[in-house]
């Protein structure tokens, strides 16, 4: 099948419109992040989560009642995945050894219905959660920093700024999505966000590679035209790779189960946004920074023999 080949879309003509859309979305995301915040999961806040299974579907109200009686008033009880499974969240509790909470909780449930089966317990102490929030943010910054350096070394500083702008764009959007819809942000979602950084970057680098190649090869045409034709030449690849990645993520989203849902959601959205940003954000930044052919033509050093890399020139 060859349906995306030899296109001549003038992407850069619409870059101002794209910029406006991106800015609006970023402002909405940031506003939500600042005013609404992120619904951090247990990994970051600390507390206890107990997942139990019953042989048949269960009503939540009686479970809430017996938990209140057992002095777990603050317990949040909800179904998880199916009506047979129940998830109970307990915020960190005062004056009680935290590790004992899950044991007590399960005993109360067992007294109520002996058929209950323990599926999962997660307890995270408050100090662990705090450390994780810190190291998570640090990880994101470290990843961005390392990438900035690598791209600056391999390409040129404007390319590095372009790719990092695209990455920041993607990360803010994904975080914004989780904030706006109040989706739970746990450790797997953090991993997904870092994977989005990896993926989006992959996309951007491929486009940049072509732009660099074309800048050196094409004698005619303005910077805008060269960027446009580079985007068109890589368009088929961009779409195909995004498509295959989205198929496998859909498989994960639909069949992977509840525990991996947040992860799949973040990546699905991230791949989508990452594809868009590698076309519009990264390249637009290049244009804005005033990239020109001269910037990429290798400098001739006296006394040093020119390498024969650029045969096409």
């Amino acid at each position: 099948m060859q349906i995306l080949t030899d296109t001549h879309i003038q992407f850069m003509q619409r870059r101002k419109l794209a910029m406006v859309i991106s800015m609006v979305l970023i402002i909405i995301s940031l506003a939500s992040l600042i005013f609404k915040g992120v619904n951090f999961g247990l990994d970051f806040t600390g507390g206890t989560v107990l997942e139990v299974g019953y042989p048949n579907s269960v009503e939540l109200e009686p479970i809430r009642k017996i938990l209140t009686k057992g002095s777990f008033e603050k317990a949040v009880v909800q179904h998880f995945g199916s009506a047979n499974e129940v998830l109970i969240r307990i915020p960190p509790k005062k004056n009680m050894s935290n590790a004992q909470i899950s044991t007590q909780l399960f005993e109360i449930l067992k007294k109520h219905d002996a058929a209950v089966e323990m599926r999962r317990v997660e307890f995270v102490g408050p100090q662990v959660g705090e450390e994780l929030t810190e190291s998570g943010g640090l990880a994101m910054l470290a990843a961005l920093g390392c990438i900035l350096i690598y791209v600056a070394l391999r390409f040129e500083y404007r390319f590095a700024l372009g790719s990092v702008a695209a990455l920041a764009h993607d990360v803010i959007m994904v975080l914004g999505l989780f904030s706006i819809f109040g989706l739970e942000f746990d450790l797997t979602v953090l991993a997904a966000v870092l994977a989005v950084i990896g993926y989006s970057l992959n996309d951007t680098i491929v486009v940049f590679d072509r732009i660099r190649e074309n800048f050196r090869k094409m004698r005619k045409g303005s910077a805008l035209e060269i960027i446009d034709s580079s985007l068109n030449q890589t368009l088929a690849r961009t779409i195909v790779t995004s498509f295959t990645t989205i198929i496998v993520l859909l498989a994960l989203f639909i069949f992977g189960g509840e525990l991996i849902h947040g992860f799949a959601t973040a990546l699905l959205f991230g791949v989508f946004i990452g594809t868009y940003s590698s076309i519009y954000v990264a390249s637009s930044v290049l244009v804005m920074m005033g990239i020109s052919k001269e910037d990429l033509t290798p400098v001739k050093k006296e006394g040093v023999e020119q390498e024969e890399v650029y045969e096409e020139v």
Partner: protein
Amino acid sequence: MLNHYPLWKNLVILLTIIIASIFALPNIFGEDPALQIATSKRGIEIDVNTLARIEKSLAKENIKINKSTLRQNTGKSNDLLIRFNNESDQLRAKTIIQKQLGDKYAVAINLAPATPEWLLSLGAKPMYLGLDLRGGVYFLMQVDMESALSKTLKAYLSDSRQLMRKAKIRYTGAKLVDEEILLRFKNDEDRENAATRIKRDLKDLLLIEKNIDNQIVLSATINPQKLKEIQTFALKQNITTLRKRIDEKFNGLVEPIIQQQGTDRIIIQLPGIQDTAGAKDILGATATLEYRAVDEEHDVDAALNGKIPVGSKIYYTREEKLNGRLIPSRPVLLKKRMIVSGEHVTNANASIDPETNGALVSVTLDSYGGKKMDDFTKSNVGKGMAVVYLETKRITQTDKDGKKSFITKTTEEVISVATIRGRFSTRFQTTGLDSVQEANNLALLLRSGALAAPVYIIEERTIGPSLGQDNIDKGFLSVIIGFVAVLVFMLMWYLKMGAMANIALALNLVIIVAVLSMLQATLTLPGIAGIVLTIGMAVDANVLIFERIREELRNGNTPQNSIHSGFEKAFMTIADANITTLIAAFVLFVVGTGAIKGFAITLSIGIMTSMFTAIFVCRGIVNFIYGGKKVDSLSI
């Protein structure tokens, strides 16, 4: 010749396929239902005779054994692994064996990997599944270093007191303030003398002369090197003790992973364990015993009114039920200097006293403890001796401002006061325990030794066996569906060339599984997600190459030239794109914990193997099909 691989390249591909297949193979054999038989009791051996006895009684009941192995474990006693053909045989056999061997042996249901012998002999093993896939408990424990430190400081304080007393140096006060020992003197001369003595005998103390509120003070702190030593020791000692406790508690049936994390944390993983309550009881427990003399010369009531004699302390007995009546707690006056403490216990066993039906612990002391006990009982026949039960617990407190803090609460209860009837040394019994459960736990704790510093669980993750299996099934299903969908798409989009990429992709999956099996890296649910993601992204390299080939063809190049320059030109792009993704994966690996590390590992492995298969192997296949021939058109 264009598009022709030299022989060695083809051989590399062939060799990779063979090796990867061998190491990935163990994963398809599944598991046999098995029984594991172990013991943690001293003096009981599991050997060929045990096995022969079991084989005989099973043969009598017509239960066929698939295979049995006597395993010699380092640091632990031997155990037996007996495999069966089906689960009903396994369950029947469990009842029979348990009955035959008695309660000195533990018989547990187990699943043993059914990897054939010849694969095992090559070192091939199935992937190591993480706790979220096989079920089990993960604990992260914080070692309370402050408490280890204060224990050491107290010892130094009493040592320096003794030193000064011996040297007849007069001091007006000695106390511990935070992490500093403060000694007060009347004059400079005394201080100088004390400093000289302490410097000579207690080399690990840093001394500073100070004047606080016009008083002549000598401040002593522990030097940084020693501090580090104390920490390292506390951590190591705790790891050893925790390992012993787990072996005792689960009769050596679990294979715990116990690791140090940072300078003051311990990770404990117990695969397959569901009894988290039992595990928590013994891991953090600090219960121990102290034997103390009853102060017979002084009166308890007088002491209660404030006249506590020097060298004695008021203790309270534990509330207990006797014949249905509640006996309330009462005060007793005990000597401060203890006779023997729990650290000198070498063996302890719980049992039931046939006379009173109460729980008791039979204790054996080491020679030092035995001598002390002997010395004491020899000269104190007819006098009282009390057993004090000590336990430290940590409680979270939230103050008015919502700030959390931890306080350590120590309970000291006298569990028995008895009259010494005769001289004894290393072996004796202690009664007065609440229940058999408590006696069992206490015996276990005394046997496995004390913790050098208290530990607290700060993170727990338990996955039940049914959820573990669910996770495997769901993960496997998404891998298969994602994989097939990508195969179908590639075939439709790139026709014959797509089929060649598909072969490379399939090999990629096999290599990922093989590498994970070889490294025995932990496979987690996010790890499976990493594999799924890799499948989607792995085709990227082929997509880049194929799109390049199409472009070259459009530019009017010959098929052979197009293949050649397509692969050539795409290479740098692929390398750049993958290296940056690797950077992100690496950061994830360094910062992430547990399950997230699993994701980072599979993602990194996937990126590297996909570069190999998509570029090197796929080229090999393309060369094999098209290379060296006259080709008019490409199916792409």
